[in-house]
Each structure stands twice: as structure tokens, then as C-alpha cells.
């Protein structure tokens, strides 16, 4: 019984655990920025006046939203790197880091696009009509009138997406990049102290995701569009 809740292996391996969560934070920040950019472009495409852009955007979203993330990331390692010999860096770890980031961002962007699109739907018709009436073009009205309001109304859903993305960084294990899930499995094998290790990693993720949740909740309330 004492063995089960002996937390000394956790403290002995604190360096490895912190390193694991540092990798999670690195992946989260890079992927977050990249997927936000890609998701905004996709959302713009999906509401564009030109049909080919709408079609391409819809195709992208439907493909990436319905494919398991595990498959996308597995293909990043086995397909893009091993088969197609795409190399983003001469250093192997840096290469796999970016492949993992691109895979994760490609997947997350589809969800950000959909969240933004539902935000665009909340913008009252009069706003867009007024923007057109003063002579703004499609891009100007999107950039100056529609998207700022759309972003502010979907901060909470975007926050949910970013939190889910943080948890999804564990799947990067299949893209050959060392992060939390890999290190936890390794420590399971080395130390055998499964309960303390599991709790340590669970608490670690809560330390990252709970403040994110409170932050996005606060931000959503603060920036809510009053109508």
C-alpha cells in the first residue's frame, strides 16, 4: 500500500517531468499561433464570394476535422519524413518538432475555422450592410468590421479549442517527438510507480489548462460585444 502512494520517484525524476511539460508548452504556443493564422485564412476562404475558395475551404475542413489526429501525426513521421523525405531541419529533433507542429496545426485550424465561421454568423446583418454602404470591399469589411466582432464573440469556444489542443500535444508521441506521454510511459517502465506518476502528469496538465480556462473565460467576458 505504501508503495502505491510513494511519491519519491516523482521527485527523483522532476527534471524529466519538467522537461516534458516544457515540451508541451513549446508545442502549444507554436501550434496555437500557427493554427490561429491558418484557421483565420480558412474562415475567410469559407465566406469568400468566389466559389472555388469556398469549395477548397470546405474540403479542407471536412477532411481534417474527420480524420483522427493520430493518423495525421503518424503520417507526419512515417509519410512526410520517412517516405517523402521532407526535412525541415538537419537536426532530427528539430525536424520532428516542426512536423508535429504542422500536423497538429493543420488539424486544429479546421476547428478554429469552424468556430470563427460561427462567430461571423453572430455578427448582425446591419454591420456588414453598413460596411458595404460606406464602400468597403470584401477584404476591408472582413478585416475592419466583421472579423474583429466575430473574434470577440468566439473567444470562449476558441479557448476550449486551445485547451483541447494542449491536451492533444500528447498525441505527438506518434510523430517521434519526445513530450509528456512519451516520458510518462518511459517513467512507468523505469520506476513502476504508476499511480504517483499518473497523478503528477494529471496535475501538471491541470496546472497548464485550468489557468488557460480561467484566462479565456475572463477574456471572453471582458471583450464580449455588447448588443
Amino acid at each position, binding site marked *: 500500500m505504501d508503495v502505491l502512494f510513494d511519491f519519491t520517484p516523482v521527485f527523483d525524476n522532476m527534471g524529466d517531468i519538467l522537461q516534458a511539460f516544457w515540451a508541451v508548452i513549446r508545442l502549444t504556443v507554436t501550434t496555437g499561433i500557427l493554427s490561429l493564422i491558418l484557421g483565420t485564412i480558412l474562415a475567410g476562404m469559407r465566406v469568400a*464570394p468566389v466559389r472555388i*475558395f469556398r469549395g*477548397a475551404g470546405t474540403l479542407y475542413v471536412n477532411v481534417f476535422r474527420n480524420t483522427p489526429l493520430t493518423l495525421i501525426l503518424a503520417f507526419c513521421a512515417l509519410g512526410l519524413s520517412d517516405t517523402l523525405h*521532407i526535412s525541415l531541419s538537419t537536426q532530427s529533433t528539430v525536424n520532428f518538432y516542426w512536423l508535429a507542429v504542422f500536423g497538429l496545426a493543420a488539424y486544429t485550424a479546421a476547428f478554429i475555422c469552424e468556430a470563427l465561421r460561427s462567430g461571423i454568423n453572430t455578427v448582425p446583418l446591419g454591420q456588414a450592410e453598413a460596411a458595404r454602404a460606406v464602400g468597403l470591399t470584401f477584404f476591408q469589411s472582413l478585416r475592419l468590421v466583421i472579423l474583429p466582432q466575430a473574434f470577440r464573440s468566439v473567444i470562449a469556444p476558441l479557448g476550449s479549442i486551445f485547451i483541447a489542443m494542449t491536451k492533444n500535444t500528447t498525441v505527438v508521441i506518434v510523430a517521434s517527438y519526445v513530450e509528456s506521454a512519451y516520458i510518462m510511459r518511459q517513467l*512507468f517502465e523505469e520506476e513502476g510507480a504508476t*499511480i504517483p506518476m499518473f497523478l503528477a502528469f494529471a496535475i501538471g496538465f491541470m496546472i497548464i489548462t485550468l489557468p488557460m*480556462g480561467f484566462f479565456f*473565460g475572463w477574456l471572453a467576458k471582458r471583450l464580449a460585444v455588447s448588443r
Partner: protein
Amino acid sequence: MTTTLDKPAAKPRKAKKSEPSVLFDAPGPRARVRNNIIAVVGTLILLAIAYVIFARLQKEDQFDGKLWDPYLEAETWTEYVFPGLVGTLYAAALGSVLAVLFGVIFGLGRLSDHRWVRIPSGAVVEFFRAIPLLILMFFVFSGPPTIATAFNREFIEITPFMAVVIGLTLYNGSVLAEVFRAGIQSIPKGQSEAAYAIGLRKNGVMRLILVPQATTAMMPAIISQLVVLLKDSALGSIIAYEELLNKGFYQMKANFGNAVPALVITAAIFILINMALGYLATWLERRSRRSRKSAAKTMGTGVGAPPAPGMSVTGQTTGEAGGVGAGGLS
């Protein structure tokens, strides 16, 4: 008679051509010319992207017939793809049933009037929602044997299948518990007040008034979550459960070295199943929005799981995300 028949026929065509939107007017002659130019340029850009991908695949000989040949043999399908698909569907089906049960129990538990039921249920739900599913699966897979050893008991054999199903149940069940709670709470208070007024007890109010109305409202959200569950079952490949990703991608790649064809086939199967489920969710959503049988507001297929702790913002956008297909991303 003929004129009235002609009109509705003409209307959809016109609507399709002008594509009215919030963001742009029905294009006039100049705008149409400009749009056509942009369309041509856009097509060229998209073709250029397609060509870059094509050229890369060509360079690495990915269109070589021998990489695709395995898919022409019946054995590939009966040995790899179908057994994998069965494994995925089996885990997802069992996981769905158990997750819905888990969700009902803990969702109702969180609504309980007794604090000693409400608080533990809330703790369980929030804990499993906050941790990554893969971490949970690893623990379910390797935890019990070490615990058994600590107690000097017999080694409990946890198969990968059990770990996948238990992990999917705990995580998605917790998300569904939040969906159930939100569904029950979305019913106007007057409904339960009226039920109490005509003499129903707590049990009756829940069973006869709230749950039936909430069920129709929650159906789209539940199906969206089941799409998530099906996608998450692919995580089982990491703990060597033989499902579609494992058999259709990893083992195909190991035996035939055809990563690209294997990706195309495996992804296509996942996309087809998930889009079918997505259509079902959207259809149910539309249907229950139309019907007036329930006082509850239909919960959309939405953009994923209920908000994380601290994010229950009133008036946030859910649902009507539109688009065909899956629910959230986790």
C-alpha cells in the same frame, strides 16, 4: 398554373447564382468580372499547390503501381482493412454505450440535491475532462498490474482493448456528463415547477418531464461527441490495439512500404464514417429545432466539448457551426 409552377423552379437557380451573403452583395456585372478573375487566379494557386504535392509524390515514386497493387488483392482487405475496421467499430460501439451510461449517471449525479453525491460526481467529471486521453489510456493499461503487485495479488491482465474502452468511457463519459447537465439545465424552470405543482416527485419530474425533453435537445451534441470518440479510438494503436489505424496504416506500411496509399485509404474510411455521423447530427439538430415538442433549446453540434472550468460564459456561441461532419476536436 404554368406561371406559378415556373416561379419556384426559377428561384433556387437564381439564389444559387447570386449566393447572397452577409459579407457581399449579389454581384453586379463588374463584380462578376472581378470575381471571375479572382476565381481563375485562385484556381491557379490551388492547382500550383496541388502540383507541388504531386511533384513531390512523383519524385518519391509514390504513384508507382506496386505501392497501390496490394489494394487490388482481396487479401489486403480481409487481412488488414476489414479486421481493423471491425476493431475500431467494436471499441467505439462499446465505448459509446458505456460513455453514455457513465454520462447519464454522473450528469444526474452533478444535479443531485445531496452534496455528498454532487461534489464527488463533479470531481470525477472535472478530473477526467482535464487530463489528456492518451495519458489516461497509458495509466489504465499499465496501472492495474503494478497495483496488483503492490497488494501481492494476482497479476491483472489488462488487454489493449480493455484499456481503450475504459479510457474512451471515462473521458467521453465525463464530457457527456457535462452535456447532460447542460441539457437538463437548458429546460425552462417553469417545466419542473409545473411538474412539482401537479404533485410529481423528484424522480417523476426528472423521468417524465426533464429527461424526455432534454434528450431531443441533446441528441446532436451527443452524436458529435460520439464522432470524437470514434476518432479517439485511433489512439488505441499506440498501445497496440489492433484497430483501423494500426492494421490499415502501420501494418500496411510495415509490410508493403506504402505510407501514402495506406494514408489515403485509411483516412477515407474514417472520413466517410464520421461524415455520415455528422450528417445524422445535423439532420437531428435541424429536425429538433423545427419541432415544438420540447421546451429545451437544441444544443448544437457545436464547436466541441462544453467549456472548460472557469469558462461558463453566458451567451457564448455554440452550435450552428454548420458544415458537415464531426464535432469537437477532443
